[in-house]
């Protein structure tokens, strides 16, 4: 097998805008794709769809108490309530479940996918932060900055309560600088680590820079009572901080609570910081392999655009998503679905949705279920394995392939077998199953078995079916039955929707079809 050499650039895509192109864009920007979103995008065209994805959105609902061991009644919004030890753990679960809700009920917007991107970038772990209010505050920061200015975002997150606690900023004081945050600020959050070219010299920064930056950041504290952040001059290192020649031997003189701004501006004055972000965006939205050609044709121009826009990221992001490179045939379906894409996407686009009249407990039982499923699949929201985020986005050489192994793939299969069955997911008295009848009804030719199989497969698989696969799936749907029988049965049901026996018979056939469809290796790719 040959790996092709991609020479395409960021020039605007001028190829065919069809279901395949639209699905590729939507899969990378949303969690799963619904039939209506697909139809709207195909009809609207690329520019329309991208504008639609970048429309502003409002936060819907807020995290609620769903357990009765909280001091507040079930259903209360707890985010602005005082810290309560007894209630805190439950509220952290409420926060995590609520975050999953944002993905499960994502609107037609790239916003939530970008929040997850930033979560994987400016990482925190809830088990270390341990304060539900600080966690919600962290989400709010991601939400407000997700499509904003990278440099200003870095400033906000540096002195946020969650980050001060997560990377020990809270104990970073003049008498004993704690360099935990400073190190990650360079290595992961901004400029990135180059190769080690000398003792303590990582090309773009040095150990000296880490130490100087730690001293710049001494004195920032947050108050456990009310979460307010303050600068304590008496805990701040007032001596001058000298940086290496990687930063032109820049010196930050004593300037109290303004020093961190100068520090971040200094790091962002280097082109490498924009390149580091460009590579991360590329790995998030396109593919993990970055060779010299990609570096030259994509990363460099993307970084130039980011710098030209003074670190506003939307311009560069739209440029990438509209590029001829993005729509390369061999890049479509080249990503092993993350657990969030896999399970949240499955729910969002093809399962019975949670109705408004459900109780808070019932809703949270479902959110919690997906939270736990994602955790089993190695992607627990607000709890990445480490400060570098999830392995899939940095660990050479496997990258996305880290999601799939002999444990997680069988678990994925268990989930799809369950949602595509009579039992579905029963939580809090509400049963959520694959909306099999709806999915067929939304097809353009519902009474032709081969058309149904092909159309539904396009929705869930990256490429059109081969003849062998198509035959296999037709057999999975109507084993040993003449193909015209499907049309007869379907039309009969249309004429008499109250025929529950027939409805169940068709549903069961469709469940079997979807179990087979979801078992294809192609379904794991997006």
């Amino acid at each position, binding site marked *: 097998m040959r790996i092709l050499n991609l020479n395409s650039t960021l020039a605007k895509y001028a190829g065919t805008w069809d279901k395949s192109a639209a699905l590729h864009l939507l899969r990378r920007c949303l969690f799963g794709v619904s039939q209506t979103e697909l139809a709207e995008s195909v009809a609207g065209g690329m520019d329309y769809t991208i504008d639609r994805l970048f429309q502003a959105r409002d936060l819907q609902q807020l995290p609620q108490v769903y357990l009765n061991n909280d001091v507040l009644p079930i259903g209360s919004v707890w985010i602005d309530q005082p810290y309560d030890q007894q209630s805190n753990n439950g509220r952290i679960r409420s926060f995590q479940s609520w975050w999953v809700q944002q993905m499960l009920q994502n609107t037609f917007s790239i916003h939530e996918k970008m929040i997850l991107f930033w979560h994987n970038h400016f990482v925190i772990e809830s088990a270390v932060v341990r304060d539900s209010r600080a966690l919600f505050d962290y989400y709010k920061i991601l939400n407000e900055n997700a499509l904003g200015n990278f440099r200003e975002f870095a400033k906000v997150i540096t002195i946020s309560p969650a980050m001060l606690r997560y990377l020990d900023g809270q*104990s970073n004081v003049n008498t004993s600088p704690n360099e935990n945050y400073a190190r990650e600020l360079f290595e992961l959050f901004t400029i990135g680590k180059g190769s080690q070219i000398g003792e303590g010299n990582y090309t773009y920064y040095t150990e000296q820079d880490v130490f100087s930056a730690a001293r710049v950041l001494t004195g920032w504290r947050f108050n456990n009572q009310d979460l307010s952040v303050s600068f304590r001059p008496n805990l701040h290192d007032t001596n001058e901080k000298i940086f290496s020649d990687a930063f032109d031997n820049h010196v930050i003189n004593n300037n109290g609570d303004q020093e961190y701004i100068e520090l971040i501006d200094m790091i962002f004055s280097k082109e490498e910081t924009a390149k580091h972000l460009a590579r991360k965006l590329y790995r998030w939205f396109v593919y993990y392999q970055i060779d010299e050609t990609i570096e030259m044709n994509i990363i460099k121009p993307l970084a130039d655009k980011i710098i030209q826009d003074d670190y506003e990221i939307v311009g560069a992001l739209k440029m990438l998503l509209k590029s001829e490179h993005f729509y390369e045939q*061999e890049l479509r379906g080249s990503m092993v679905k993350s657990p969030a894409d896999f399970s949240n996407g499955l729910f969002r686009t093809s399962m019975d949705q949670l109705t408004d009249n459900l109780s808070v407990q019932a809703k949270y039982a479902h959110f919690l279920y997906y939270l736990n499923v994602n955790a089993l699949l190695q992607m627990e929201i607000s709890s990445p394995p480490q400060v570098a985020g999830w392995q899939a986005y940095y660990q050479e050489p496997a990258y996305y392939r880290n999601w799939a192994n002999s444990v997680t*793939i069988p678990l994925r*299969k268990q989930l799809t077998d369950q949602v595509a069955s009579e039992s579905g997911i029963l939580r809090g008295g509400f049963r959520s199953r694959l909306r099999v009848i709806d999915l067929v009804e939304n097809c353009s030719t519902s009474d032709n078995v081969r058309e149904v199989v092909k159309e539904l497969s396009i929705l869930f698989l990256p490429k059109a079916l081969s003849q062998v696969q198509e035959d296999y799936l037709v057999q999975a749907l109507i084993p040993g039955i003449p193909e015209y029988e499907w049309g007869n049965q379907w039309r009969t049901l249309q004429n008499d929707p109250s025929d529950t026996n027939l409805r169940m018979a068709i549903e069961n056939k469709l469940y079997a079809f979807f179990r087979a469809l979801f078992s294809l290796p192609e379904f794991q790719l997006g």
Partner: protein
Amino acid sequence: MNRRNFIKRSAPWLSLPLLLDAMPIFAAKPERALDRLNRLALEEDKILVLVQLNGGNDGLNTIIPLDQYSAYQSARANIALPEQSVLKLTNQTGIHPAMQSFHNLYNEGKLGILQSVSYPNPNFSHFRATDIWTSGSESDEVESSGWLGRFLNYYHPEFPDNYPNEEFKDPLALTIGSVVSQTCQGPVSNMGLAVSSDEFYFPYQPPAEDEIPDGHYGAELEFMKTIMRQTNQYADGIQAAFNKADTLSPDYPQSRLAEQLKIVARLINGGIQTRIFVVNIGGFDTHANQVVAGNTTTGTHANLLGDIADSVSAFMDDLKRMGVEDQVLGMTFSEFGRRIRSNNSSGTDHGAAAPLFVFGTKVNPIVHGANPIIPANPAQNESVEMQYDYRDIYATLLQDWLGADESLVTQIFDRSFQHLPIINTITNIEDSVFANGNWLGQNFPNPAVRSTSIKVFSNKRDLAVLSLFDNNGRQIAVLLNKEIEKGEKVILVDTSSLLPGIYHYKLNLGGMQLSKSMIVKK
């Protein structure tokens, strides 16, 4: 017979890479050998278990330099362990009191400690340092495959094509958990699989579809097909091995590490062919509050160390009850140690060298190397200096335990290596001399440079006298002169002051005299 010569002569061995040592280890215990024959898959295989400590373990609070206690105490006053609390391994060196069960293992001759392990030009980033430790690369070299991955790939260059097969029915390596180990990453695909619990669920009958398109999409699709096929094909064997055996030791603590090791023990006892296992324990990145203030023997770090010691000891006990103890060798590793000086948050920042543990009945049960030097007033960013290069340890394990020859080991690490006396390779009882059920073993390592160890076995509680003579018959030292318990005893001999040459050691035990010779080199 020299094992490496044996290997060279037996060409077919190349296709049986992990069925290593054909010599009967248990010749002296025929009843065990018979039992073992009944467990076909096990035969004489050696098993390596890696315990990865994620986050960078604080070595100075794990193995404590008692000979420099005051310097240690003043460098890290807020987290230093009280001198009396430290469990002594030797007069100079002690172990954290939470590791009581490791102290016991050490006394039983089943635990070795290598001091100050690292590599030149250490890296302080978790991710880069982990990559270095898992790949076996130089500090400034980016190598994306793992050291065990390259080892396995040498013998299984076609993997995963045509695996599993008649000869290799089980995975070549297994990670316990839901992520495959980077250590087993081969040049092309990961040579190992992951298993997580006793539920191995299996699933797929996708239609035959051999056409894989070119390009990135095709590459990912091929990967996905391979994972699914492997999962299906290996599942039954793993499940069968797991179901065949049960946990036998009551000593396992309640912990994730213990759960992982339980699975490893059951799979081994169930006869799985897999020779390499990787387990993990996280939480070692102790920048803050690694001890409880004012009670420094307790807290986060103590809990972690206690978990390792208790889980590994229970694992060893489990293996012993299963009768497979001698086949298993384990090693801990972590991406780096921590600074000599603690910080003001009762924690420690990223450092360099740190000790690692090797465990098993075949380890050389000593403290290798000297205590790290602790300066009177260390700088805030000062780390422990390296004594052992981690690749020399890997290389020795590959050579002495997994049977790779020197040229292969050199190829895997792309450097020559220094062989270390970590493993007692004298497994062949024929190298020992017997009388009345007592025996005297060949010293290890032989030739000796700085030190060597001699094994003595007594069939009852008895007075044993072991003496050392030079080649002219002059007695140089009495190595042992006391009553010893029934069983095996290891005597450590300091040979650093001896002139190079041939020496003889004689054991008077049970009214008989046994003697053997050894070589001392500079």
